[in-house]
């Protein structure tokens, strides 16, 4: 779904834009002059048609609702080339993270992997479960079998503190 189609009937939402601006702090997307350095080096451009410069422009126009509900913000591979190379310090990476947070807050369609990681953290403190690995000779090992120390997991009070942190809203 291309963003141009999405926005053809759209109205800007300036309040939501302010939220995004506030969220990204001193990285002012307002300074973007569409030099396209971000898009020309974007890892997700070729395969997934992510154009960070387009995200910047649409966000500064206030088409935040369309962006937050679009699949396109989930294609960023977070290689940080745009954050590095933007001459205006308007880092599309930071805008995309803020838009993802807004999408979660609005309960838009969010890739399952991210939410699964959060519930795993709530459960154990780690984003992933301990796995058994297989050697090239097809022997299975866990940490103990490899002579590795046990993993120290967080104390009980962690869960409540993390849940409190998750209540923080964008903007």
């Amino acid at each position, binding site marked *: 779904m291309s963003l141009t189609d999405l926005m053809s009937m759209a109205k800007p939402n300036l309040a939501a834009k302010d939220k995004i601006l506030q969220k990204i702090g001193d990285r002012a997307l307002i300074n973007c002059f569409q030099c396209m350095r971000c898009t020309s080096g974007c890892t997700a451009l070729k395969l997934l048609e992510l154009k960070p410069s387009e995200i910047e422009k649409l966000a500064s126009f206030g088409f935040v609702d369309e962006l937050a509900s679009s699949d396109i913000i989930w294609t960023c*591979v977070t*290689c940080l080339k745009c954050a590095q190379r933007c001459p205006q310090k308007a880092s599309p990476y930071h805008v995309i993270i803020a838009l993802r*947070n807004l999408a979660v807050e609005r309960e838009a369609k969010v890739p399952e992997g991210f939410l699964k990681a959060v519930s795993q953290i709530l459960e154990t403190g*780690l984003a*992933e479960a301990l*796995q058994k690995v297989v050697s090239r000779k097809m022997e299975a*090992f866990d940490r103990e079998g490899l002579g*590795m120390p046990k993993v120290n997991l*967080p104390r009980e009070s962690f869960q409540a503190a993390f849940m409190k942190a998750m209540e923080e809203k964008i903007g």
Partner: protein
Amino acid sequence: MKVSVFWGCRILTSQYAYEMSVREVFPKLGVKLVDLDENNCCGDPVKSVNDFAANYLAMRVLALANATGLENLLVPCNRCHFVISGAKAVVERDEKYGEKVFSLLKEEGLAYNPNVRIWHVIDFLHDFVGLNNVKKVVQKPLRNLKLATHVGCQIIRYTDLGRVDDAENPRKLDDLVNALGAETVDYAEKLDCCGAALLLSHPDSAFSLAGTKLNVVQGLGVDGLVVSCPDCGLIYDAKQKDAATTVGAKLNLPVVYYTQLFGLSLGIAQEKLGLNLNQSPVDKLLSKVSP
């Protein structure tokens, strides 16, 4: 000297070879690693869900490092290194934001200390231990090996956070490989991302990115690819077959962690370095290393 270490989820739960090889190599340099009393996720996958909660998690790691009383914290994972460095920058720039995080930490009796220095394996070895000291401990120089390096994204970008190496021309990993006696090659795709972060949302694209780069590196005629990030290690090594299928290429490129290579040059037994766990055909590379 003692250094605290935060491994991060990917290493602790599956990339055991990286952890094993770091645990073997560092003591040989006179560095004693002290594990944190607790390990929580650094916040990386949480950043996309709730940036504040992610920064809280990262700061909790720094507070746990502070609790060890040690000044230096080793973070061998690129993504953890970035997320923790980013959180540190936010709380130090924005006082109100910092206070919110600190009060959450305080509830658990934890406190942040801005003086704890964050290191990755690469800059710790290159800058703190020093190339000359690395060269000095090498017992079996890896003279027969010609290797390509893959630094990964998040330890070199973005510079404002203070990164491990130069963003556009990183040399430290190459220097470190050369210090072991092996040759390295430059190639145009060196800065290309491995794609592993897309495994959460677009696995086919992740494999496509990984496979494309692996195919290029294989075409260089090198003995292997050296990585220093558990995400890059996961997709290039453990998932190499998936990457090959996705791009329709025949891939059989040995992929090793830098610390595994270092361990070999120190004469450490292969199994202690987890070299039996690599899924890529590392035997080809190992046959060129004198036993």
